[in-house]
């Protein structure tokens, strides 16, 4: 067997689909040819490494956002949505509010992502100077500030809705769990405050912008998880509640 043919057959050998007769010919060639043997070992190592890659965990907030979007689509499609049988009626409005808030966040997140992928992102990093001094960059700074404020407001509105929902239903939670959530929210609020100050001082700073929106996203995720936890407890789903509370 020639080297070029042997290398073509390596693929089938690694996949375990090589004809037994050809396999013996290939083995004989590999025994005599060091470079082909080295290639075979490396390609097998690559395939093994691929098969050994770990699954990547999905953050829980993805499901919460998806569930909100799914419910809205169902409602728009003519009310085919069938709520879980155990869901008490008194939570209908609560779920609708949470879903609406999640949708607002999803819309805001999408807008921000779209902005971030625009070619203008490069300009934000390196403002062009104009012939008349800093007039161009002043306009740019103003434009960026307006965009940031609009995005910040989207998050703020969504957070307000979520906070109201959490406030109304928090009594369902164990006092210790509620206290932990409050403490974490306090830390996140402090980070939001500091990041907002940094953004106001340096609107063109990518780091400051990312820090602000990361903190806002964390707050949304925590509030959504809290709502989901309340919902699971109300449905009597201990397993779901344990999963969300990490206990």
């Amino acid at each position, binding site marked *: 067997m020639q080297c070029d043919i042997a290398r073509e057959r390596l*693929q089938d050998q690694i996949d375990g689909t090589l004809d037994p007769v050809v396999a013996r010919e290939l083995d004989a060639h590999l025994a005599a040819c060091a470079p082909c043997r080295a290639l075979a070992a*490396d390609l097998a190592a690559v395939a093994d*490494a691929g*098969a050994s890659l770990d699954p990547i965990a999905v953050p829980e907030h993805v499901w919460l956002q998806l569930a909100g979007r799914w419910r809205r689509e169902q409602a728009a499609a003519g009310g085919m949505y069938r709520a879980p049988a155990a869901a008490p009626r008194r939570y209908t409005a609560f779920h609708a509010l949470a879903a609406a808030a999640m949708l607002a966040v999803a819309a805001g997140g999408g807008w921000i992502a779209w902005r971030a992928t625009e070619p203008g992102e490069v300009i934000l990093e390196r403002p062009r100077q104009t012939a008349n001094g800093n007039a161009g960059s002043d306009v740019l700074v103003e434009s960026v500030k307006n965009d940031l404020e609009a995005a910040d407001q989207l998050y703020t509105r969504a957070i307000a809705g979520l906070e109201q929902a959490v406030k109304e239903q928090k009594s369902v939670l164990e006092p210790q769990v509620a206290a932990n959530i409050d403490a974490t929210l306090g830390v996140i609020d402090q980070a939001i405050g500091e990041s907002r100050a940094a953004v106001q001082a340096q609107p063109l700073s990518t780091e400051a912008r990312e820090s602000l929106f990361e903190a806002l996203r964390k707050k949304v995720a925590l509030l959504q998880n809290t709502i989901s936890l309340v919902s699971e407890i109300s449905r009597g789903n201990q397993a779901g509640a344990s999963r969300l509370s990490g206990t």
Partner: protein
Amino acid sequence: MIPSNIQHGMISAGTVYQDDLALAERCRQGDFDAFESLYREHSSRLFSLTVRMLGNRTDAEDMLQEIFLTAHRKLQSYRGDARLSTWLFRLATNLCLDHLRSKSARMNQATSSLDDDNAMEPVSTSPGPVLGTVQNIDMERAVARLPRGCRAAFLLHDVEGFEHREVASMLGISEGTSKSQVHKARLKLRRFLAGL
């Protein structure tokens, strides 16, 4: 009874996966618990594929939602003749490739189809193996550098364990092209990992 030697649900004509079909039917009827079951069963593998295809967790989170919403809208086309996981992976892969194509178009980059990027990798003729133990983190980085066509084929075949005929069906290519794309990916990965 489903033959045990069948992986991922590509089976002979006439066999129907009743459990998957029943779950799909419940989802179609707007059963929230069924939709959550579908998500809980398949989201982890689909998210892994999506993160590795898009190379970005934030985009992958958005894409995962799109995959499940699109799946829900299209479930009426699911006939139970393949596993629901296969059907979902086909949908997910195509949505990811569409996303990457549109991203390339927006950035005015040259685009290529899965089949027209078949130039073979130069093969190193080292007398001994150039790779030692491959760490996961190095592998993840190397996979991210692959061209999208062979990356998809490699992820579906070597990482997710689908057979070439399944990969071919998912990507709309021939089985031979699937094999050559996976081979090309392995050669490129060897080069990336070895720093050649």
